[in-house]
């Protein structure tokens, strides 16, 4: 089953979790996806192997970047049909707060959907969405029918 077939199946089922099932790296990070009030929320379950600073302890900045990038891709796949898997062109991550040893959630908003390029703004939070631990802006190469 190709990734695009998985995506079609996920959308047909209304089950975003199926987006992740086929991606080994999503399993490695401990990602899950769910629809909450119509928004696709991606959650990274806390696990000790995600830690970047054992003294605090804090989650590795790279894993937050990976969560943000993944959540942006899932939001995009959920929002739009694309004939290619989105390819990340560029991502800029702002780290706002130290992320503690807790689950982290993220949600992307597609801010521009063109035929070839999509822009997504995405934020990640722990205790409350009003206090994001990191945000990112990303551009993706996509392919949509005109």
């Amino acid at each position, binding site marked *: 089953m190709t990734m695009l077939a998985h995506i079609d199946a996920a959308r047909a089922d209304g089950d975003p979790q199926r987006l992740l099932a*086929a991606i080994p790296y999503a399993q490695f990070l401990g990602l899950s996806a769910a629809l909450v009030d119509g928004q696709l929320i991606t959650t990274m379950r806390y696990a000790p192997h995600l830690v970047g600073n054992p003294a605090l302890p804090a989650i590795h900045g790279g894993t937050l970047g990976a969560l943000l990038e993944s959540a942006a891709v899932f939001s995009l796949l959920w929002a739009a049909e694309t004939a290619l898997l989105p390819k990340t062109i560029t991502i800029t991550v702002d780290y706002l707060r*130290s992320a503690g040893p807790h689950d982290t959630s993220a949600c992307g908003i597609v801010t521009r959907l063109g035929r070839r390029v999509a822009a997504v703004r995405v934020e990640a939070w722990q205790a409350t969405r009003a206090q994001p631990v990191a945000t990112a802006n990303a551009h993706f190469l996509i392919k949509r029918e005109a």
Partner: protein
Amino acid sequence: MTTDPDPIERRLALARRFTEQVPHNQALGLVVEALRDRTARFRLPYHPKLIGNPATGVLHGGAITSLLDGCAGAAVFATLTELQPIATLDLRIDYLRPAEPGRDVVAEATCHHTSKHVAFVRALAFHADDEAPIATAVGTFMIGTKLGTNRAARGGA
């Protein structure tokens, strides 16, 4: 009285030990290939658990983000005169071409400037020195972040 033969070497050895003990770096299998004054070179061994697209076997961009973030942070450690806690402030990554399935990815980072509170880093990811880069990155790091400050920022959690 003996004098320290090479304080820089001792500091780099400390930074290397610190980096190698980071749990997520271990989970990724990151190898510190070199740590010199202001520069770091890390290797991310190819592993199936890091695949982002199972149809092609290409690594997930997130694994490269962690590689670049970790390598950039090590370059900052390799610049500081004493080992202080640091925190990534921002990191921009441009993906120039996909990594080839089955091949390790190497990152090289240089901390080209530090001010009192902030370190500025540039980094590259590639398969081999003589090949075109897979990704470029620029990042900034806060120097001397304190436990108490972070706790307060998290709302006292």
